[in-house]
Every structure is written in C-alpha cells, then in structure tokens.
C-alpha cells in the first residue's frame, strides 16, 4: 500500500543545508498500522509530511497505492496533526470545517454526511455549529479526525495525535482511532515519541534517529523489550521513568 525507498529530504541549500531524512526505506501493507518512533529532530514527522504531499521537495521514491506522494489525490491519503489547537481554522465552525472537503470535490448530501461524520467520532449534533474556541482539546482532535475521514481516504497519517492531550483524553482518542481503523480497514502510519502509544496502536514499527531508520521490528518484539539496537534499548529504558543510574549512563547516538 505504502512504499518508501531511499527517501532523502534536505532543507536549505548549499553549505547550510540540513539533511533531515537520509535514505529511509520501509513499506506498509494494505490495512496495516505502522509506527514511526523517534526523538525530536529524528526526521519522523518530515517523512510523514512528504508522504502526505505537503512537502514535494525530496529524492527517492514514496508511493501510496502505486501513486507518487508528489501527485496523489486527497482521497488517497489524509493526515491528523499533533496540535489540535493549531489544526482547526479559528474562524470556521465545525460544520464549515467538515463540509469544505465535500464542497471542494462536489460531493452532495452535505447535511447528512456531516452529521454522520460527527456521530462517527463520538460528537453529537450539538457540536456542529460551534467554533474551535468552544471545544476542548479532545473534542478538537475528534473534529480533526472527522475532517480527515470526510473524503474516505484509504490511508490515514497520524502525527503525534495525542501528545498535546491529557492522558484520559488520550485514551479516548486512541480507542476512537482503533475503532475507526477496524471499521474502515484504514492503513495507518502513526508517528510518536511515545513507545507505549505505538505499541498499543501499531502492528509494526520503525525507530528513527537523526534521519535514519535505526531498526524495524514488530510490536511483539517491542513488548518483550528485545530490540536489537543499543539506541532503541536506551529509548526503552528511558521511557520507563526516572532512574538515577540509568540517567547517568545516557549516551548520545550519532
């Protein structure tokens, strides 16, 4: 379904250019849920934005269903962003946010589709004419998910969808995403720094550091805490909470 080969992305030109992604390859099967884990600056979000088609300045291959990520259609792939406070237009009501994709693509039956989309993400009709500032963070993220699903894409890209939310809200959103994935046979890529979230949501994952994939594994390996690479082991230990001895042994991987 998704195939990425030797993907290289750099920003800036000449001597000041930064190689954000340095030859990344992976593939995701139809209906699979794939996680990308990494710390800030690892290039994980950059890969996602390239796959979404938001950044078209890259080398290598990145295809979704045999169509290059540079030319694919809105119905192929949609994305949910990290910060629900920044991903909804502040002056558009929920109704307008959800009906706009239908309007763009000339899809009729707007009323019932918007109502169904709201029901699907667990928001009642009462939310339909609210502005984002009348919604909580979790409700905003539900609207963002509903927007991403309006065009019924086959692939859903999730960029840290819960890291700006409280843990109790995170649980609700993760449950929602799992249910929607099962109902619609979505192919998903979830980018996160949180190993437990990736383990809960995905079948397989890649660990990225400094623009490279350090290793790829299935979630069972992660659950058994048996990664191959030292970098992943350190990440795993660090995510288990504070330990004086562990903190003293932290090393930087290049």
């Amino acid at each position, binding site marked *: 379904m998704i195939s990425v080969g030797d993907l290289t992305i750099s920003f800036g030109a000449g001597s000041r250019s930064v190689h954000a992604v340095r030859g990344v390859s992976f593939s995701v099967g139809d209906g699979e849920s794939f996680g990308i884990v990494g710390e800030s600056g690892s290039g994980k979000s950059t890969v996602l934005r390239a796959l979404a088609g938001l950044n078209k300045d890259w080398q290598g291959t990145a295809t979704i269903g045999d169509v290059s990520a540079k030319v694919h259609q809105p119905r192929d792939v949609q994305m949910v962003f990290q910060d629900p406070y920044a991903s909804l237009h502040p002056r558009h009501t929920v109704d307008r946010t959800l009906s706009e994709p239908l309007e763009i693509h000339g899809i009729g039956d707007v009323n019932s589709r918007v109502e169904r989309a709201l029901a699907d993400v667990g928001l009642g009709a009462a939310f339909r004419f609210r502005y984002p500032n009348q919604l909580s963070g979790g409700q905003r993220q539900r609207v963002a998910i509903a927007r991403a699903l309006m065009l019924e894409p086959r692939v859903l890209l999730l960029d840290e969808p819960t890291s700006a939310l409280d843990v*109790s809200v995170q649980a609700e959103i993760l449950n929602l995403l799992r249910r929607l994935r099962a109902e619609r046979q979505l192919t998903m890529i979830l980018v996160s720094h949180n190993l437990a979230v990736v383990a809960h949501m995905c079948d397989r994952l890649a660990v990225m550091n400094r623009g490279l994939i350090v290793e790829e594994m299935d979630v069972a390996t992660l659950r058994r805490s048996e990664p191959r690479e030292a970098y992943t082991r350190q990440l795993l230990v660090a995510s288990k909470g504070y330990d*004086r001895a562990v903190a003293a042994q932290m090393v930087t991987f290049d």
Partner: protein
Amino acid sequence: MNAATRPLLEIEDLKISFPTPTGLFHAVRGVSFSVGRERLGIVGESGSGKSLTGRAIMQLLPGNAHLSAKRLAFDGIDLLTASAKTLRSLRGARISLVMQDPKYSLNPVMTVGAQIAEAARIHGGVSKSEARLKALAMLEAVRIREPERVYQLYPHEVSGGMGQRIMIAMMLVPEPDLLIADEPTSALDVTVQLQVLSILDDLVRQRGMGLIFISHDLELVASFCDRVIVMYAGRMMEELPAHDLPAARHPYTRGLLNSLPRLGDQRAELATLTRDPAWLVEP
C-alpha cells in the same frame, strides 16, 4: 517549631478564583500542603489548578486573580503580608520558577551566557568575571557540552532541549532553597528529560534544595518524586508517597493510571475516565 525542622513552605487552604462574565470561577479551591527539603510532585490534568498553585507561591498570578489562604509561608515568612520588596528579594534568589516553554522566558536580545551571569550577579553579589565563571560552571552542570560556545549564543540559536537546560541553569545559579518546576521537561526528549531530572535530583540531594515538580506525567512523577499530590478541578484528590502511586486508592488517580497505554499489556480498549461530580465537593 524551630528553623531546623520547620518545612520550607507551608500552604493551608489556598484558594484562587477569577472573575468571568458568568460569575467567579474557582480555579483552586482549598489546597493545603507543606514542602521540606524533598521532591514533591503535583500531578493533574490541564485545568486542575496545579500550575496556578505553583505560581501562587511566587505571587505571580494574573492581575485579576483573587487569592486567599489561611497560611502561605516560605521559611517562616508570611508571603500574603510580605512587602513587594521582601517578595522581590525572595523571588529568584531563594525561590525560583522554571516554566515549560523557555522561549518566552529568555530575553531574545541577550546572549544566554550574559543572562545567566546577570542572574548570578544580581542575586549572588559577585563580580563580573566571577559571574561569568559561575555561569559557565552552571552550564556545564546542566550537561551542556561546549559551555564556552553556548555562552555566546542567543536564545533563538539554541534547540528546545538546550533552551530548557539553559533556563534551569539560570534559575539555579542563585542557588535557591526552593525550586518550583512547572512541566520543566515535557517539551524534551525522554533521554534529555532524564538528564535534566538527574540535575535536579543532585541539587536536592547535595544542597538540600526543596523541589516542587508540577507535571501531568504520572509515571514520571512516581519514579522521580518522594511524595505526590494528585489534583483535580482545583482540589487535592489525594496525597501519598510517590512509590505508592501505582497502588493509589482514589478513583480519579486509578482512572488516570488505567487510561495509560502500557508496553506490557495488550488491552484492545483503554479504560476511559468517568468523572464523578462528588470529587468536586467531598474533602
């Protein structure tokens, strides 16, 4: 009670409210605790009043906030009746506050080194060259690899993780007795987060500093702090030793713990929190 056994900070029945068009909004409603030379964690979700509690200690609340308390005392000094001059001499020198986002707390037109040195000069009364050495030493203490180079950088030239460590260096250079850290590490990568925490840990152990660690991350607080207060909607739900947090009794704390995804278990559905209106009223 004499000075040796007296807690650093005593808070009794702290209340903070804000006027809104529809009446008073009670953001903090009756919080009482004390802090000694230890690591106290305050956990809660957004809107629980945990950050306001931290700011109330510094007397850094928005102008329209109403604050009341039976007692709010630092090292025996009543903060409620203290003069502006007394408060100024406490702030920064004896009580420091580290906030989540360093970008808004650093002066954008001064090099970070100069800012730390200035903090050292104002509160430590040392000469210019001594202040510089102190700033460099502090940068090294917060594990910044090339302190000489970083000293010359402007805030926009440093990464988020480094900015946060610089903030901490600046807050620690006057060697405060009490550090209030409001989500100091939530913008950082886990590995950097642990390094920053170990710096704070060292300061508590070696210098006997008191630390109030405000966070939304239950697991982190459970592993890092000595004692934990769980807050919800401006009230304290429970107070318990940090290592007992995984076995907490209160349904709110339990609900939060159960909603966390964990590497070890394979639940298809995460438990969601049902909020009990009774939590808002019962003590």
